[in-house]
């Protein structure tokens, strides 16, 4: 007999795991497929102090418990795979992975989360770990006394610049706008630090070097002038984007690249639901992702009941 799941959940962050817990506890045959690390962005959080009912913990521990809960209720989790194809249009949905496996389900919950935005410029990938970094806390000490460029203008970029100033000799913040999105408090701290310099209205165009980063090309967006800056490292903090690769023509998506859902987490496609950071919403917290996942799983359960799929 063909193996058809009641629900396949794409993504194993807080939204996906919560959906997995609720769906499998409701005795739905549940499979979670995850492209990267189980836990999504939250495992990178060093301290979570505002998750109700849980005293201060970290993202890794919280996710490990969620994962165990889901598995204990019978949820199957397959991680670190690559989704090659998604068919949501037929009554039985299909997910194909790069290993050639095809998983079928009556319903789908899209909980693909968000991912850090990359620069996508020449040299970025080549010099990753050899000057290009996405974590000042991790790699800051390798740049002691050196000159670095920080890209971005939000809270992370400014906060991390101040943190990097403990190590680096000189920091140049390159930001595409003429003002920062970061809270004024952080901006003031950065402006007061003599090691931190600013290049506004500017974007990086190329990273080059030999065994490590030596030079960046920066474009001034107000006059399109291209200049070069000698540097030992580049720290990139330019926000997050919803993970909707492969979903663009399958479900309704807004101009920001977020999946549109109703209050039951239902998309415009029958039997397809979405939850967490990939959906259009204002607040992105672990708690809101957990709530989204819960609602999506309960909606799936209700849908399957109404379709007479289950008794």
């Amino acid at each position, binding site marked *: 007999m063909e193996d058809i799941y009641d629900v396949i959940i794409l993504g194993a962050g807080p939204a996906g795991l919560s959906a997995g817990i609720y769906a499998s506890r409701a005795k739905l045959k549940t499979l979670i497929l995850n492209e990267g690390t189980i836990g999504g962005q939250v495992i990178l959080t060093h301290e979570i102090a505002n998750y109700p009912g849980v005293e201060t913990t970290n993202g890794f521990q919280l996710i490990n418990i969620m994962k165990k809960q889901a598995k204990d209720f019978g949820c199957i989790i397959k991680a*670190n795979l690559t989704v090659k194809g998604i068919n949501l249009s037929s009554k039985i949905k299909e997910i194909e992975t790069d290993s050639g496996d095809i998983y079928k389900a009556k319903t789908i919950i899209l909980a693909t989360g968000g991912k850090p935005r990359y620069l996508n410029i020449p040299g970025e990938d080549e010099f*990753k770990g*050899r000057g290009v970094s996405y974590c000042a806390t991790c790699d800051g000490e390798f740049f002691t006394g050196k000159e670095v460029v920080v890209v971005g203008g939000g809270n992370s970029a400014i906060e991390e610049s101040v943190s990097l100033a403990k190590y680096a000799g000189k920091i140049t913040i390159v930001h595409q706008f003429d003002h920062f999105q970061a809270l004024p408090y952080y901006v003031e701290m950065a402006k007061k630090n003599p090691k931190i310099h600013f290049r506004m209205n500017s974007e990086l165009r190329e990273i080059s070097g030999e065994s490590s980063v030596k030079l960046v090309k920066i474009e001034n967006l107000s006059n399109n002038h291209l200049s070069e800056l000698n540097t030992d490292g580049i720290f990139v903090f330019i926000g997050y984007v919803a993970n909707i690769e492969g979903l663009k023509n399958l479900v309704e998506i807004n101009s920001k690249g977020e999946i549109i859902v109703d209050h039951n987490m239902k998309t415009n496609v029958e039997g397809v639901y979405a939850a967490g950071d990939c959906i259009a919403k204002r607040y992105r917290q672990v708690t809101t992702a957990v709530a989204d996942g819960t609602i999506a799983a309960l909606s799936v359960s209700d849908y399957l009941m109404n379709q007479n799929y289950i008794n």
Partner: protein
Amino acid sequence: MLITNLNHVESADQHKKILEENENIMICCGRMGPMCLPVYDVMDELQDTYKHVKFFDMDFDSADAHVIKSAPECSGFMGLPFTMYYKNGKVVKATTSIQNMQQVSSILDEQFGKPE
């Protein structure tokens, strides 16, 4: 202190012993940080498949982590984690910063052979 599902290398002596007693070894030396956790997770996933390889992690901030940090193969590395691949006690590959499942699998296949 690393909180992972991997076995930990906790001292230089243990590191030496592991290298002496095992043919194929992967050690990820890092912290509980955003670039390191995905690598630990990939290793955890691969442990069951690559039974001919021993997987370990090591705390980058432990005093004995010099056995990896000061290895010539890590010269010029500027991003955590430092990941080492050893065959018969010798370093055959070293990588810096985050690596995904495909990158790690590819190195394991190339250096130690595909799983049966």
